[in-house]
């Protein structure tokens, strides 16, 4: 088979630049982390990354990030739906509000959330008598991660929803589909890839989050210590190799998860095309 020539010119140049740019921005710093860990022998590395406190922190970080991303996927979809489908006064304002978690310094978010959810805060003082403690527990971690992840889902789903033509839904209705069928068979498959992307972005963002969580988590060993805090703790002891070892584990797990989500997206896209 003859090599297919691209119609667009400049492929070699742009690909070369892309690889150079990605190396500079992403790969080189990451490889520095990997190289630093080689100061440890394999048994030492294993001991660092499987210490009970570290393992407890993986569970919290990935578990809380997953729950937060699920919450964001559900309510982000709802928010995007409302913003796209219904005209109402103050819509522009709400639309701008969605981006706020992007712009706010995460430490400010953390302090604000802690103030609201702690035992003497606006919300916390209502929840505490019910026996629900949010600040300084793993629930607080989920709350902070949900806050910082919200814009991702809304902003990825919104444009896709806007592009959906009303005619397709009208066609579905005229062919006898009820409202639920229209949503589940017509709308949902179209926005599913975008929703998945939003979920993945929110999830990835949550895994790496430090600033906002640190204030609300309480940071109790084995209970509410997130993995980024473990890394900071190790740096504080000048244990650079140990810190990067934990970082490498996080990187690998995150990469695998994101890779799996991308794979799922690719697969669902193919299913959709095949179904046509």
């Amino acid at each position, binding site marked *: 088979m003859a090599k297919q020539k691209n119609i667009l010119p400049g492929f070699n140049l742009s690909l070369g630049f892309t690889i150079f740019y990605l190396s500079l921005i992403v790969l080189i710093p990451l490889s520095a982390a990997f190289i630093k860990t080689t100061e440890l022998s394999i048994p030492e590395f294993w001991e*660092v990354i499987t*210490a*009970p*406190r570290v393992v407890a922190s993986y569970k919290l970080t990935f578990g809380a990030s997953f729950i937060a991303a699920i919450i964001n996927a559900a309510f982000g979809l709802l928010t995007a739906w409302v913003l796209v489908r219904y005209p109402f006064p103050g819509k522009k304002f709400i639309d701008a509000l969605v981006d706020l978690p992007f712009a706010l310094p995460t430490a400010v978010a953390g*302090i604000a959330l*802690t*103030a609201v959810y*702690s*035992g*003497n*805060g606006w919300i916390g003082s209502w929840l505490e008598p019910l026996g629900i403690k949010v*600040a*300084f527990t793993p629930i607080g971690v989920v709350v902070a991660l949900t806050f910082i992840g919200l814009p991702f889902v809304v902003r990825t789903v919104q444009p896709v929803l806007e592009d959906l033509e009303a005619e397709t839904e009208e066609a579905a209705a005229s062919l006898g589909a009820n409202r639920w069928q229209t949503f589940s068979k017509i709308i949902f498959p179209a926005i599913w890839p975008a929703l998945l992307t939003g979920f993945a972005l929110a999830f990835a963002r949550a895994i790496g989050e430090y600033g906002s969580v*640190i*204030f609300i988590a*309480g*940071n*109790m*060993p*084995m209970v509410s210590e997130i993995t980024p*805090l473990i890394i*900071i*703790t*190790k*740096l*504080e*002891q*000048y*244990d650079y190799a*140990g810190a990067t070892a934990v970082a490498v584990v996080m990187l690998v797990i995150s990469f695998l998860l994101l890779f799996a989500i991308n794979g799922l997206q690719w697969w669902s896209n193919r299913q959709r095309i095949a179904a046509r």
Partner: protein
Amino acid sequence: MQTFKYLKKALLISALFVPLASLAAEITLLNVSYDPTRELYQDYNAAFSKYWLAKSGDKVTIKTSHGGSGKQARAVIDGLPADVVTLALSYDIDEISAKAKLIPKNWQKRLTHNSSPYSSTIVLLVRKGNPKNIKDWSDLIKPGVSVITPNPKTSGGARWNYLAAYAYALKQNNNDDAKAREFVGKLFKNVPVLDSGARGSTTTFVERGIGDVFISWENEAFLAQKELGPDKFEIVIPSLSILAEPPITIIDKTVDKRKTRTVAQAYLEYLYSEEGQEIAAKNYYRPTLASVAAKYEKQFPKVNLIKIDDVFGGWQKAQKTHFSDGGTFDQIYQK
């Protein structure tokens, strides 16, 4: 053309300033310090600039950077060009010597009082009226008492807190190490939140209203009382505490490169002078100069203080036994 005119003007003006600046030597110093010294060095920098201008005719501007002691030391190790460092504990400066070789190993012998012009100690801050009737360390392990302290793994101040409690327990139990561990274990069972730094814990205790007692630097406790009014908090002096000596040093490699050794050295030495000591005392650090100490005797209550070198064999050893991975602090949470 309009922009051109402005550009010319700007160039002219800046040309005027260049020769002026080169007449009198303009020196800048960077002091890398830890969190609660903000107010202290604000006052001291101004005083030193004045003193140095009068003495040598040179204008010196001092910038001070603040943050957690360990983080600040790491920044210097990684290349932040600090002329002097004034940190919370000698362990952090030891690491600057060991990891980056910027200063000689015997740096702490170069200035008097272990290179610590002022000292502080660890006290207990309780809410007005002391509702839980806290008088000493032993009250902190009682059930139902909630204790606030930062995480010793991330906060230099919290390490002093931990060691003070540990030293108390050692003394109560005839130096029985196992009993002392049990004591700090019980104490930390009463800690609901472990903030990563000292200021974070102050916020938790003061603003969030969490905890009955806050283990704190003496100067932070005074400051909290001054800022928020003595009608809200009381300071409780425990029967035994630790002598906290926050050390200072010049960074030899940097001052030689930047040719600032003389002024940097003077900057540190002036901390030991009457005026420097006075400023330290006003900012609630215990002065080491006898005359100033006598003057502020009333402000600083007498405390039975132990030294880290005597009880714990120095910072290197204390760090290793208590705060490194798997140390006594980690063991509290890994049962």
